[in-house]
């Protein structure tokens, strides 16, 4: 299943927004049989460590049986840096 991160906003900032995004994610993803979750960052302008840390920790805890794939971040130096430092890529 492909999830377009820009649909949560082009500026993804702070932990409370990250927590809210997880809750929305669960509504979208729950019950789906696919074993891959693909997060596409195309169109996202800013991603802060606070949001990324909160969001992906929550995703990993909730979907331990699914493979998490990130893409669409390659051309954005800052998003790439955040994901790399948090060991997400």
């Amino acid at each position, binding site marked *: 299943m492909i999830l377009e991160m820009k649909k949560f906003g082009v*500026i993804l900032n*702070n932990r409370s927004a990250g927590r809210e995004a997880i809750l929305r994610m669960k509504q979208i993803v729950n019950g789906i049989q696919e074993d891959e979750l693909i997060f596409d960052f195309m169109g996202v302008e*800013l991603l*802060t460590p*606070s949001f990324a840390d909160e969001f992906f920790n929550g995703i990993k805890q909730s979907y331990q049986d699914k493979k998490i794939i990130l893409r669409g971040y390659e051309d954005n130096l800052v998003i790439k840096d955040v994901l790399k430092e*948090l060991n997400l890529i």
Partner: protein
Amino acid sequence: MQLRFDTIYKNIDNIIKGSTIDLSDVDFIHPWPLVIICLLMVERHKNPDKELILPKNPDVLDYLKRIHFCDMLRELGYDKEFNSLNKIVKPESYNLNVQEIMHCNISDEFNARLGHINLMFQNFGLNKDQANFATNIVAELGNNVFDHNSGNWPTDIGGCFIVAQNFPTEKQIEVAVGDPGIGFLGSLRARFPHINDDVEAIKLGLRGNTGRIGEDRGNGLGFVQRWTIDDLYGNLMIHSGNGLVEIGKNGIKKSNVNKILGTIAQFVI
């Protein structure tokens, strides 16, 4: 009197006279001292004898008007001073190097301004990647303000003050983010009760420690340091309580200075 990061502490005793903040002899003011002035105003805002003596220098008065310092005066109850500064009627020159002071009272307000802040950095001449790094630094500094103070502000004025200025001749951008909050020491004491020194508290925070017990978090300042120094070749300064820490590529410098309410963090690139 020029108020810059490196002159404010030498001059602060000439500025603070009890409940009066005297800016009469100020000929130039940078973002860092301006945020200190805002925090001093917050500290005194309930005092009926509070007073702010505006600068005599007409250029500084024009600058304060241009950056909407009037809004701070009005918000913090400096009515006489607000009326005096507001009388200056001048068309706002279209100068992208000068930006209005932002006081974001709540996290949502701060978050909503990040798009504007990103554009501001692009208008300062940064390329897209540099503007994104700089905006993320402001975002993490602002997030810390709300994450560590919400529900626990020492006075009834909360939020963060953001002042940014581009100095094209010097090829320098200064961005200061201040808050009238509990400071590094107040936040970290919950988890590290043995700390009683502001400088030590700042250093502990910079190493990724957080005062929020039972939560796995606290790497935001690590990103802020790395982006400022390694990616934008700048310096980071943090003043909390009476501790001042400066970090750059040449290392860390610590000192004890005048006590403030809350914290100011600035990056200079």
